[in-house]
């Protein structure tokens, strides 16, 4: 067959282009290969605000404290801290001899610099900004009136004082990522595209967008130095592909979404390779009493909570990758109460309660919409069906686009909805103070209780963890006794690791840094 010369030339160009693009990557000796569900949104601690970015960056950066494999809080870059008598500040004693990835030593001035960088208005500070607003002088920096943070005083290289505008006893456990204050001078403003400026067990090597984030061991790490030389985090958006790659030995460790994990949980060949831990995410049913009058009756709220089968839901819809949730703090999060009373599935009692409230078999109940976004449409259909079947409630299912739904919930415009909340720091205060505390913008079902709010206000000023947890438990009881919500289920995080991979630590806050991982 004769091909014209232009065609032959094109063929040659394309063939060489194909070869150029698919040039083989250099092989490494001890590389841990794992998956990321998407590109991280950033690898910069200043703008940091996203989950996948967190998965990468926790290997690179550290805060005052970290969590251990059981979710407990342990000192990291701070060795200890003392609350001021008025709880409006701390004296923090830093760990000595900690080296940044640059080789420079970590000291108090780096803490102050990090805070200032996140607050500076031009820097587009991300998630961490939320935790810094409590600092004295933070507002002045944000408004461009100052560049020095007056609320942080460097006493000596290993000691600093932080001052707040109101009590905030949780400050030491916030997920800070301290940066090397010399980094901009050394590498310029876009340093984070080239290097990492942390103290973590790994340092940044490269991020090939759409393909891979690669990290290398930080040999001078103050804690347990990594056993692997490098981590290759491959960007694999399809979980099915990730599982196939794992089966073909192209990945050593993978994390999976609960819903997609069903196939893995059912397959006996993965039995010994599964890690499963409840996520630090509460799920609840919002019942807005301002929008639907029958919700004002506690008996109606209780009846609703008794009318669906949490165990069945976990088995059927979650494929076992979940557990019933009976409170509003998830196991593994500091402050969890293991003695919360289980809520039974009791259709008989639920019917009786409805009759007592004046709605026998749902008679007299006005229609109501139960709303959620598309991800949870199956779960939503289950609840609606149960409420109809058990209570005779005239419920209509409404699926709404995520952005619209969030906006409406924030405005307190959704009467009835299942939703969740994921903790950013390892303390139950996150759930209680954001979802159920009266003044919180995220109290989306508008449940309000003066006693609950007082308990939370008090807890904010109790630095002693155990004493604080007791207040959480009381507050949680107030919420549950009032049937302010129906706790739903807690999702399991599922991960797989090959038998030759040891020391992978999966926690309610996802993987811990991979420095403890050994490849045999």
């Amino acid at each position: 067959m004769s091909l014209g010369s232009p065609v032959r030339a094109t063929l040659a160009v394309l063939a060489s282009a194909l070869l150029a693009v698919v040039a083989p990557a250099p092989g490494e000796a001890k590389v841990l290969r794992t998956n990321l569900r998407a590109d991280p949104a950033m690898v910069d601690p200043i703008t940091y605000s996203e989950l996948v970015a967190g998965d990468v960056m926790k290997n690179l950066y550290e805060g005052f404290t970290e969590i251990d494999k059981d979710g407990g809080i342990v000192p990291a870059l701070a060795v200890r801290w003392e609350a001021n008598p008025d709880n409006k500040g701390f004296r923090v004693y830093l760990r000595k001899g900690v080296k940044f990835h640059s080789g420079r030593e970590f000291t108090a001035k780096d803490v102050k610099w990090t805070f200032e960088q996140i607050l500076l208005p031009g820097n587009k500070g991300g998630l961490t900004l939320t935790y810094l607003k409590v600092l004295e002088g933070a507002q002045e920096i944000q408004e461009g009136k100052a560049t020095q943070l007056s609320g942080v005083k460097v006493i000596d290289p290993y000691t600093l004082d932080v001052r707040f505008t109101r009590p905030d006893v949780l400050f030491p456990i916030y997920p800070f990522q301290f940066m090397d204050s010399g980094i901009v001078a050394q590498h310029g403003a876009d340093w984070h595209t080239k290097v990492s400026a942390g103290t973590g067990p790994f340092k940044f090597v490269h991020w090939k967008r759409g393909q891979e984030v690669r990290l290398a061991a930080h040999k001078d790490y103050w804690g347990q130095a990594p056993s692997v030389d490098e981590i290759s985090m491959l960007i694999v958006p399809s979980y099915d592909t990730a599982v196939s790659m794992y089966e073909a030995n192209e990945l050593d460790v993978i994390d999976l979404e609960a819903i997609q994990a069903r196939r893995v949980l059912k397959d006996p060949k993965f039995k010994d390779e599964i890690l499963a831990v409840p996520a630090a995410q509460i799920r609840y049913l919002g019942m807005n009493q301002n929008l639907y009058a029958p919700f004002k009756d506690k008996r109606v709220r209780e009846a609703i909570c008794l009318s669906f089968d949490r165990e069945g839901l976990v088995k059927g819809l979650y494929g076992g990758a979940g557990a019933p949730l009976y409170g509003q703090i998830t196991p593994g999060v500091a402050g969890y109460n293991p003695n919360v009373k289980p809520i039974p599935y009791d259709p008989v009692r639920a019917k009786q309660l409805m009759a007592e409230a004046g709605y026998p078999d749902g008679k007299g109940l006005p229609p109501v919409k139960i709303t959620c976004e598309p991800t949870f449409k199956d779960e939503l259909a289950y609840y609606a069906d149960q409420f109809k079947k058990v209570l005779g409630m005239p419920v209509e299912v409404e699926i709404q686009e995520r952005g619209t739904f969030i906006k409406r919930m924030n405005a307190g415009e959704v009467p009835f909805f299942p939703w969740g909340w994921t903790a950013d720091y390892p303390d139950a205060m996150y759930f209680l103070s954001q979802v159920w505390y009266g003044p919180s913008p995220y109290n989306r079902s508008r449940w309000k209780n003066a006693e609950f709010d007082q308990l939370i206000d008090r807890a904010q000023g109790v630095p002693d963890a155990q004493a604080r947890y007791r207040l959480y438990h009381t507050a949680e009881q107030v919420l549950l006794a009032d049937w302010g919500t129906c706790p739903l289920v807690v999702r399991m995080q599922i991960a797989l690791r090959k038998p030759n991979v040891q020391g992978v630590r999966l926690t309610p806050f996802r993987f811990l840094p991979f420095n403890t991982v050994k490849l045999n």
Partner: protein
Amino acid sequence: MRAYALRRALGLLPVLLAAVVLTFVANQFVPGDPITTLLSDRSGDTALEARLRAEYGLDRPLWRQFGTYVGGILRGDFGLSFRFASTPVIDVIAPGLLVSPLLAGSALLIGVPLGVALGIFVALRRNSLWDTLVVLLLVAGTSIPNFALAAFLVYLLSVRLGWLPVAGWGTLSQAILPVLLLAIPPIAYVARLSRTYMLEVLQQDYIRTARAKGLSRRLVVYRHALRNTLVPLLTTIGIIFGGLLSGTFVIETLFNIPGLGRMAIQSIFARDYPVTMAIVLLFTFFYAGINLVVDLLYGVIDPRIRLGAGRAGRA
């Protein structure tokens, strides 16, 4: 010829303009608010929301947003990504920009010659067992969806036998399965067409004349008949390439190839509309581009087309 080329190139402008307007308008009809979605668990932070709205220009009237959008495209600037906050769309898509055209192009270069060869092979053996067998395979090739075939082949060749990598991009062996799978529909399509065309051409008088002159069968088929079979085939290249580009959406996702196809899927699920819009425009551009090339080649091959182009319009 130059006037013809210029005419054809200018003819693309309305197509591209329509694509720009349509993607912009479609984006306005998408329900929901991208900033709220972007903020998600921080959606209660009104100061941050205002800052982002201003940064993305969403606080301005629609006609100004459109002006900025068109002006940006002319400068090669597609705005900012929602998923990758504050990152220009162009930085998000640049690394994958050539992957999809490269995949589609490789599949085209493998698929078309193979398809032609196969089509001619069976045309010359019309109504034989070979003919029936190949035609059957061709029907299967066009009707089995490539994701189903991909899942089967990955399981067999990669997971079970371990001959080829499951997924990824960076080595030649990683490119084999995706390119092959992409090439199957065009092979089947081209083979069926060239079989029909070849059978038609072989009935023509000039073929009989050539045979009557005593030329060898080989010469008659390859010199006389093949050329006239290829001319109508050329027009289908544009359509095939379009099909291949959309095929990359599935193949890139299955094989985890960092091209525009996988990125399009990801950006749709992540509601990263600026990225989706940019990819739609780029695919329109690639598609229009290959059609331009085909039109020009057609003009080169068949003088009637470039001379009559003024009257007849599209070739």
